[in-house]
């Protein structure tokens, strides 16, 4: 059963970096950030390509973001997407997941889809909301935190991770939306010829007009959303720090562990 698969991808600032707050307090400073494909979306992309390899069909990689996200879309092509689409939504931070999800859903309506995949969360905004919202807007069934997907009897069987290591298994009718969990598979590396080929492949761009909006500001929302401000988190508490050279730190740590009775004297 060939599947039309759409995988929603997000490019995020590498969360391992340090961040500074912009002078207006409404965003982080973005002039010197290093961007990458969101962690969970790597697994979603891999799951999409594996589903296609097993069942046949096509994988379309979709993102809503500025021009810089082309690099991520080419990575998706090199890893097995057949086509990529960039919604030219250029709000750099896009803090309102409701707005972005409405735009993604509008774009998915224009693309054949049996399965819509995305990562369980983005590591920048950590909403875990895009998949569910998109499913709701499109009126599709969905499942979240998916660690296994199998095509079965015209639908899918999925395992969803719960707290404490439990999994809940469902069968789900198609078309459906799934959010893929970290570790669901082992994402592949792109082979060099595929990287070279991806560099020449076209990236389809969708404007607001293509999705029926006069502008991105005219996306109808049943609410008003605003970022009040960003700040460095007030530390709840802070560790007592052991300082010095590595050898000094090691000496103090060993002494500390001995004093607390955790190591032989």
């Amino acid at each position, binding site marked *: 059963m060939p599947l039309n698969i759409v995988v929603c991808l997000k490019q995020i*600032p590498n969360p391992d970096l340090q*961040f500074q707050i912009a002078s207006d307090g409404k965003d*982080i400073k973005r002039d010197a950030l290093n961007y990458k494909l969101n962690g969970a979306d790597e697994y979603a992309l891999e799951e999409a390509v594996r589903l296609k390899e097993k069942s046949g069909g096509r994988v379309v990689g979709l993102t809503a973001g500025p021009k810089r996200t082309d690099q991520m879309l080419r990575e998706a092509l090199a890893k097995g997407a057949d086509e990529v689409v960039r919604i030219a939504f250029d709000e750099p931070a896009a803090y309102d*997941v*409701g707005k972005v999800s409405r735009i993604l859903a509008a774009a998915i309506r224009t693309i054949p889809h049996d399965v819509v995949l995305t990562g369980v969360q983005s*590591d*920048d905004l*950590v*909403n*875990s*909301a895009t998949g*569910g*919202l998109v*499913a*709701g*807007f499109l*009126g599709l*069934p*969905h*499942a979240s935190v998916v660690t296994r997907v199998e095509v079965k009897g015209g639908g899918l069987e999925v395992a*969803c*991770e*719960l*707290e*404490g*290591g*439990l999994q*809940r*298994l*469902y*069968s*789900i*009718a198609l078309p459906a939306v799934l959010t893929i969990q*970290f570790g669901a598979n082992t994402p592949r590396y792109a082979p060099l010829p595929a990287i070279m080929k991806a560099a020449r492949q076209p990236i389809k761009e969708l404007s607001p007009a293509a999705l029926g909006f006069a502008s991105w500001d005219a996306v109808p*929302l*049943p*609410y*008003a*959303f605003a970022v*009040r401000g*960003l*700040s460095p*988190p*007030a530390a*709840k*508490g*802070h*560790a*007592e*720090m*052991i*300082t010095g050279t*590595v*050898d000094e*730190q*090691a000496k103090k*740590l060993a002494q*500390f562990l001995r004093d*607390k009775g*955790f190591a032989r004297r």
Partner: protein
Amino acid sequence: MPGDVLIFAEHLEGRVAPSTLEVIAVGRELGSRTGGHVRVVLFGHDVRSLADLLARYGTEVLLVDDPALAEYTPDGYGQAARAVVEGTKPGLILVAHTSEGYDLAPALAGVMDLPLVTNCLALRFDGERLVATRRLLNEKVQAEVEIASSRPIVATVRPGSTKPAGPAAGGTVTVTPVRIDPSKLRTRFLSIERPQVQDIDIGGADIIVSAGRGIQKRENLPLIEEFAKALGGVVGASRPLTDMDWLPKTRQVGQSGKTVRPKLYVACGISGAMQHVAGMKDASLIVAINTDPSAPIFEVAHVGIVADVLKLLPATLKELKG
């Protein structure tokens, strides 16, 4: 006015999720400030005793009993949730930010075209506006966002960000029938799967030395094992390591793994993402080693060392043996 508060309870195999009591605490607090009525919705089948238990926390409990709701499914609970929201017209809908909660809440917001804010550490009303405190970018940035709407706002509350509600008087149970249309259910529950236990149980260990991405290579695991052995402890891991199969899933500490309360927890090269911290923050003594001085693990640790764990552990082992 911000209106009434509607809370969706979570339960599994006869137990109410601890996060539900935290959400009730948030709901009661908001309700007492705005004058809104607080209702807790319990979906299930033959769960009267859970409804009675929830009523001890002082709110009205809407018990929705239907065989189709015996097990959670996104579709079944989604359909029932929509019916209850339409029937009660709340101003605010609260759900715990758990695997089940962030499955239910966004889809409900999508299907009903409602505003949504998720994974909130704190919520308050400023006039008509709901103000949410959130953490971004691996806990390194805090954000305050606001939503104003004439429609019910859906919000999910991060587990562990509030103390659970204590018992309170005045709770009641209202049996609330909801019509579920089985022909519209497209997800079907199959089973609950448990991890196979054939490994040591880190949940019972007094001393845990956990490794994170900071150990860089699988080949460095023996160093962690050696350190754990020197302290008489066992090796745990953060999620990325078990995802890469460097260690079995049974060693994973965190929300999706084990919750541990050892006497000593040494976090080696673990940044301290919320999902990990949720599983170890109650250890009696936490020592964290990380190269990044701004790593959030230093917020929960009692003792912190900014160092490369691959250099610090060998040096410390030498000291311990010396």
